[in-house]
């Protein structure tokens, strides 16, 4: 328990560091949200100055940071200029969608990668293993951007899947089952893209971890005792190879988040990604900082979850 307490405090410091870093970048940045207004001859300079002081942009940086911290403590996470509301409600609505997308993708890619990796490692250097290894190597070289574009092309050509958004227009009038069906149809394409993107890395790690374990004496003796191969693979070898894989889980959350940023923009999935790009183009700095903080929170959360799993899986860590 103390271990987790320590991790939690560590996380807090990390988030604090990220926020300081973001504000330092803000300080280096030329121009702000009201820059374009200043160039507009229809708005007087006095109005622009008044608006800047209303949002506190004329204050020195430490003071702005302090004010931002206060608003974080109030649970507002700063103020968005372009939406004219506190940042938190904006982000929370979007974060739910990002979470739905990445969690589904993470679950699915692990569910696919584990059997494939185990299967492939148990038939090392046979044709199946070769085909899978070659396939994943090729897939690794295809960036998410291209995957997303090709999937979009297929969807548009065949009309099998809706190509954007979270729900159909008729969503509110659908019954419960219809709603599930509609969500699945809409989430399919982005999830497919994320799964295909993260699969090769997961597959390779799982395969190499298992290949190592399958060489060890206890597996040979288990096989010698006539224990069925499936049992050996999944109940003996997989748990022994679990440690690096659980750490990989934390890492894979980060990659998925980065990948989902682009996929969300391309497939107009209303997650944090499009909001961030919009905010960057509008110079809405607090929204940018908020989005970055949220993504860090997800990543740290994923790592924490991985640590928790590791803690449960490995008695050696519990003893420390």
């Amino acid at each position: 328990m103390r271990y987790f307490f320590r991790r939690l405090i560590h996380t807090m410091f990390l988030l604090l560091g990220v926020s300081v870093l973001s504000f330092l970048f803000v300080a280096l940045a030329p121009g702000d949200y009201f820059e374009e207004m200043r160039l507009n001859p229809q708005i007087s300079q006095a109005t622009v100055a008044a608006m800047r002081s209303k949002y506190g942009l004329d204050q020195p940086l430490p003071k702005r940071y302090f004010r931002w911290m206060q608003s974080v403590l109030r649970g507002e996470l700063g103020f968005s200029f372009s939406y004219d509301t506190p940042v938190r409600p904006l982000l929370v609505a979007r974060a739910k969608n990002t979470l739905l997308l990445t969690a589904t993708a993470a679950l699915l890619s692990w569910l696919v990668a584990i059997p494939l990796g185990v299967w492939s490692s148990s038939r090392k250097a046979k044709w199946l293993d070769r085909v899978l290894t070659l396939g994943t190597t090729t897939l690794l070289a295809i960036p998410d951007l291209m995957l997303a574009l090709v999937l979009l092309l297929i969807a548009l050509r065949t009309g099998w899947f809706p190509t954007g958004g979270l729900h159909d227009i008729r969503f509110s009038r659908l019954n419960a089952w219809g709603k599930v069906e509609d969500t699945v149809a809409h989430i399919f394409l982005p999830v497919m893209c994320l799964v295909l993107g993260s699969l090769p890395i997961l597959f390779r790690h799982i395969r190499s971890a298992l290949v190592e374990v399958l060489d060890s004496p206890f597996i040979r003796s288990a096989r010698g005792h006539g224990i069925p191969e499936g049992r050996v693979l999944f109940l003996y070898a997989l748990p022994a190879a679990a440690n690096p894989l659980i750490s990989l889980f934390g890492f894979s959350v980060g990659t998925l988040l980065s990948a989902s940023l682009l996929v969300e923009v391309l497939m107009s999935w209303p997650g944090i990604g499009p909001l961030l790009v919009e905010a960057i183009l509008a110079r809405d700095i607090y929204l940018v900082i908020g989005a970055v903080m949220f993504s860090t929170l997800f990543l740290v959360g994923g790592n924490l979850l991985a640590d928790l799993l590791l803690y449960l899986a490995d008695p050696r860590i519990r003893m420390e």
Partner: protein
Amino acid sequence: MIRDHKLWLILAVLASAHLIVLWAHFFAPYDFASQERAIPFAPPSRLHFVDPEGHFHMRPFVYLWEPRPGTETLGAYVEDHSQAFPLRFFVRGARYKIAGIFDSSWHLFGVEEPARIYLAGSDDYGRDQFSRLLYGGQISLFSGLMAAGVSLALGLVLGALAGFYGGLVDDVVMRCAELFLALPWLYLLFAVRAFLPLHIPPTQAFLMLVLVIGMVGWARPARLIRGVLLSAKERNYVLAARGFGASDFYLLRRHVLPEAYGLLLTQAALLAPQYILAEVTLSFLGLGVGEPVPSWGNMLASLQKYYVLTSYWWMFVPGLALVSVFLLYYQLCKVLQEQVKLVRF
């Protein structure tokens, strides 16, 4: 020295790709900005050997594209068979400067005006995709390579400081690295980009991309290099050299850093494609190099329009180039990893 044909083969292919891109002025038949607005989205030119009368020609030729009669849709073209335009090598074309000094107008190949040769079709302004692909490669390939250089240089300096001196320096550097690694990398990149001006001239945009991408990614190489140095500095010959009064700088240069060369090479091969992709992603979303200067990212950006995505397959060409460069880099990385285990640098 490494005696591996595969490694040299991959390196040769990669190097020639970079060289061709670097001499895009010569290899590209047209300037990246020259437009042919009358025929947007012209499909790739077909090279013919047989004319309508059935005569065979040794020298391939192309026809003019003209809008298909009676259609209003973009990109519906037929060939005008009335006049053939043979493909010629070493022709005079758009003027350019070699290394910014010498004036030249030689191009590797081309056809006579008014015909234009489109090896990879043309885009919505009727600009030659093939020429833009080569010019775009200058931005995309070299920004990746240079950003990897920046990252590795930063990582080397900071990692070496942390690993070699330890103590407080180590703590500070490694905490900072943790901070950078705690952020999802694309989000971090976007955040840093967010605080720089949006509309900047292409040269500055290129340098900005190199610096931003390079500086965001320093943490991982720094950690790895620190790890190598930590073990390297404890070796007996290092201790012996220190006992003979060798200075820190001498020790680092002569005995400790050479252990990290293999790591640096593999990391470069690993980081370069990742950074090329970063540039492509940023330019794709309009946060990198802007029109009319091409980069593979902003060339792909037109695919965000659904009618372009479904109708004009040749707009995917920069993507194909990207995938092949990635395949090469991954192969290089794989071979290097095997070699570094075998060879001591």
